[in-house]
């Protein structure tokens, strides 16, 4: 018999994977950021993301019912089993590239969690309502930096433009709907992500105008993260994140 995977498991997994990979990427800045202020900020945003991931992945594990908790899902899956969007796995690059990624992602998360906070399934709604306060703060932080860099020096402006230009191609995936989304909506646990796009556009455009920047030129969208087709970058990220459980399977302390 074919194994049936609950669509809600996958739905929770995607939410958790997005937060986990975003958090892991940001935590790579810890101790390396251009200024203490930024180091503190990025590490704290990373902490929030990993906290959200813990909740969503624990929920996924509970739905699956195979005795896998959030840690098992985070540390004992290989790259093709990860369902995060491609945007969050993009390397940190320079500071502008990190900010561009966070800016686009945090505004998406803010709209997503505002929607999810109102779904019927209380397990999803509770995590989303909790996380919403956090990501709202992240969106403000990233937006401030987009303005500072975009409307800053010639150098910072050029880097901000190049970064947004690169990250932009991964944003369509955020609003793409598939069978899992449809099933989650039907079960009262999901929302129509495609419907968030216009509000997201508006938020992004407002900040870009403040930053005296234009919207990046439209690119052919790059998709595949939800189905486990990732960039080479994710494998490297996991090799570091999962090192301990790979070297010492089942280690606890």
């Amino acid at each position, binding site marked *: 018999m074919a194994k049936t995977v609950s669509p809600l498991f996958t739905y929770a997994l995607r939410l958790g994977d997005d937060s986990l990979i975003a958090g892991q990427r940001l935590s790579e800045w810890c101790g390396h950021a251009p200024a203490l202020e930024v180091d*503190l*900020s990025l590490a704290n945003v990373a*902490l*929030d993301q990993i*906290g959200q991931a*813990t909740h969503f992945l624990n929920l996924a594990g509970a739905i699956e019912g195979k005795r896998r908790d959030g840690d098992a899902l985070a540390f004992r899956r290989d790259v093709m089993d990860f369902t995060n969007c491609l945007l969050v796995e993009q390397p940190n690059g320079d500071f502008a590239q990190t900010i561009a990624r966070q800016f686009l992602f945090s505004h998406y998360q803010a709209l997503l969690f505002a929607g999810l906070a109102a779904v019927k399934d209380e397990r999803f709604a*509770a995590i989303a309502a909790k*996380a*919403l306060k956090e990501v709202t703060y992240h969106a403000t932080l990233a937006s401030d930096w987009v303005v500072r860099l975009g409307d800053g020096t010639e150098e910072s402006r050029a880097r901000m433009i190049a970064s947004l230009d690169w990250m932009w191609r991964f944003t369509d995936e955020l609003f793409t709907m598939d069978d899992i989304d449809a099933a989650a909506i039907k079960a009262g646990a999901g929302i129509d992500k495609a419907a968030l796009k216009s509000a997201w556009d508006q938020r992004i455009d407002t900040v870009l105008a403040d930053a005296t920047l234009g919207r990046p030129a439209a690119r052919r969208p790059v998709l595949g993260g939800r189905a486990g087709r990732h960039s080479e970058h994710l494998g490297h990220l996991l090799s570091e994140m999962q090192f301990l459980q790979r070297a010492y399977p089942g280690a606890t302390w």
Partner: protein
Amino acid sequence: MADEEFSVIPGLAKREPGTQGQTHSSATPWVPDRAARARNDDVGAILGLLSSVPDPEIPCVSVLDLGIVREVSEARVIITPTYTGCPATTAIEQSIRRALDDSGFANVAIETTLSPPWSTDWITEAGREKLRAYGIAPPPKGANAASLKNAQAPECPRCGSFNTEELSRFGSTPCKALWRCRACAEPFDRFKCH
């Protein structure tokens, strides 16, 4: 009577009266110490214990002051995290566990809830005063309505001046931002509105 004051878990709209039969107004600040003294039952004893369990990162305030204890009964203590990723969450649970075990309440369970999400509005008045005395500017009330941009400058907890500026939106813990007083030139932590 004091009965009307101590049953309030900060921020909880309405608790069922239960066996104590008390009523309360949500506008009344909860004073945990007084609550503990005023009751002789197990719930009172547990509340007394909790009022001496400090937050591991901001030890000047107790878990009750912070408003992270959502419900106390003879069977369980329900707590809620401040931030989803707050590393103190586990430490707090362990401290409460130890306090309960040491006082013969090993059977009292500790449960965690996410909903409704914690708000800085639940920090008690006493907690706010303790934060201020400790050098941390307490968050303004009305967190849910207020902008997260912290539009209003906080009062310097050292000299009382409002001539202050934000240095860093994040600080030494997830719940704080770093500010500086232009009047006395001292930096200080500000508890973020959340």
